[in-house]
């Protein structure tokens, strides 16, 4: 087998492996965009992050402040939440924003959306940077 044939075979393997394993292995892509059934893609849960500023008022945190889209940021939040690393997420956000703002408390709410449109609070995590610093 000459070099040309080896390259051609490797090229096809790089295409077929993500297809067979249903996953992207960057730089080899799986092309499952918009393929998932909507019963799975339909998000029934969402995460809301708020922070308390220097006047003790609570503000919603917008992902635009760190230059990420809402969809991308919720992806990150979900990841950190289920891997039990939410304090690490708060610590990172706090590190980015503390230069411009004094923040005394971070809060995450996990909300479940019911079929009728109602929402139910499922979980709530609070993180205080001062307490963390003292520890």
């Amino acid at each position, binding site marked *: 087998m000459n070099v*040309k044939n080896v*390259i*051609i075979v490797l*090229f096809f393997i790089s*295409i*077929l492996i993500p*297809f*067979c*394993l*249903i*996953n*992207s*292995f*960057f*730089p*080899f*892509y*799986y*092309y*499952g*965009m*918009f*393929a*998932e*059934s*909507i*019963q*799975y*893609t*339909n998000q029934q*849960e969402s995460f809301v992050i708020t922070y308390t500023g220097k006047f003790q008022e609570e503000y919603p945190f917008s992902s635009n402040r*760190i*230059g*990420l889209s809402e969809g*991308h940021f919720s*992806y*990150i939040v*979900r*990841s950190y939440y*289920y*891997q039990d690393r939410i304090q*690490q*997420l708060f*610590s*990172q956000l706090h*590190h*980015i924003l503390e230069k411009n703002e004094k923040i005394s408390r971070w809060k995450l709410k996990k909300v479940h959306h019911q079929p009728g449109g109602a929402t139910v609070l499922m979980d709530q995590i609070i993180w205080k940077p001062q307490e963390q610093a003292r520890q």
Partner: protein
Amino acid sequence: MQLYSWIKLFGNRKNKRGSRNLFVCILGIVWAITVLGYIFFVREWVRGISRNLAPYWFIQLVEIVYPRFNTEKHRFPADFFLEKADQVILRFSLLALIIGVGYYLYYFNKNFATKLGEFWNQKMDKLQVERLRMIYSVITCYLVWDWILILNKLSLLSGFYEPVFLLRLLGWGFPPMYVCLLLYGGLILSLLLLLSNRWVVISASVIAFTFIIIQGYFFSFHKIDHTYATYNYAVCCMPLLLYQRQIALKKGLDVVAAWPLLLIRIGVATAYLMAGLEKILIGKIAWFYPQTLIFYLNQHESILYHLVSQYPVLATVLSILVVIFEISFVGILFLPKYSFFFLACGFIFHLSTYFFLGVGGLLSPWILVYVFYIPWENISFQFIQKNND
């Protein structure tokens, strides 16, 4: 002793037919063991993996292959993962079947082997490579000009960095800003060298390396994007194409081996094919239900949403058209005469996804990569020709 004589019968290297039979036998045995192993053991492990009721090594393996499993297992029921595991086995079986049929046709059908040989040994005019080199350099410059700004933005978020497969293999963390500058500088300098026809193979190789690595950093923040997915085939195969051009120049030939260009074309066409197949294999019939498209349009706050929700049949027609387009795009490889028709359909498809779903852009890399399907050597550029003279 019996086993030895059996292997000797099938695997005699001098006997080509024997070694071919051995290959088919091994393929069949591997496939049978995989399917049986899946049915009797692995399927049960997949069912229990969300509750840690699987062997430790299997859980570790799943975490390596599917790093997001730990997050998604809380979101989806066990059946969701079981369905995926069934799909994996189905796809490997399909692949084994295709390899088996391809192998049989190659060795037992002379016409097929000749046609395949002719396909991979195609030549093209060196003018095609010259023009592609220039067009590729300009397009890539356009695609990457703001990458240093993105790297700068991401450097502030380095706490969220989780390397993608390639960077995980290399063990690279998020680089300090001076390394980002070096990578970006190397990319831009190589593009300028390629445009000015200097050290073309080395420049194209540096472009391929930096283009993929920088992109790897972009997608190491928990989400892989498909923006450059098809363009990556072009980036990775351009050094090979330019190397073939160099060989032709050294030999004083006017024609260049076309197989690297064919790889780019195959890569792009199969991307569409797989995107279409996924909709059938994963979404199944549900993908054609009007609710599916209506849901996606609503999710993206599309202007088409109200029209389609009033006329659900329109949603089904559009869904069918999308799948037909994606699966039939591969026809561009076999019907080069009609390539402009396929490209026009692709252009309309991407414009529609941009306007109605907000995916991609007017000059998205998925559209720009179409330049590799255009026979540039047949197009007359009087201005360039005069300059060359």
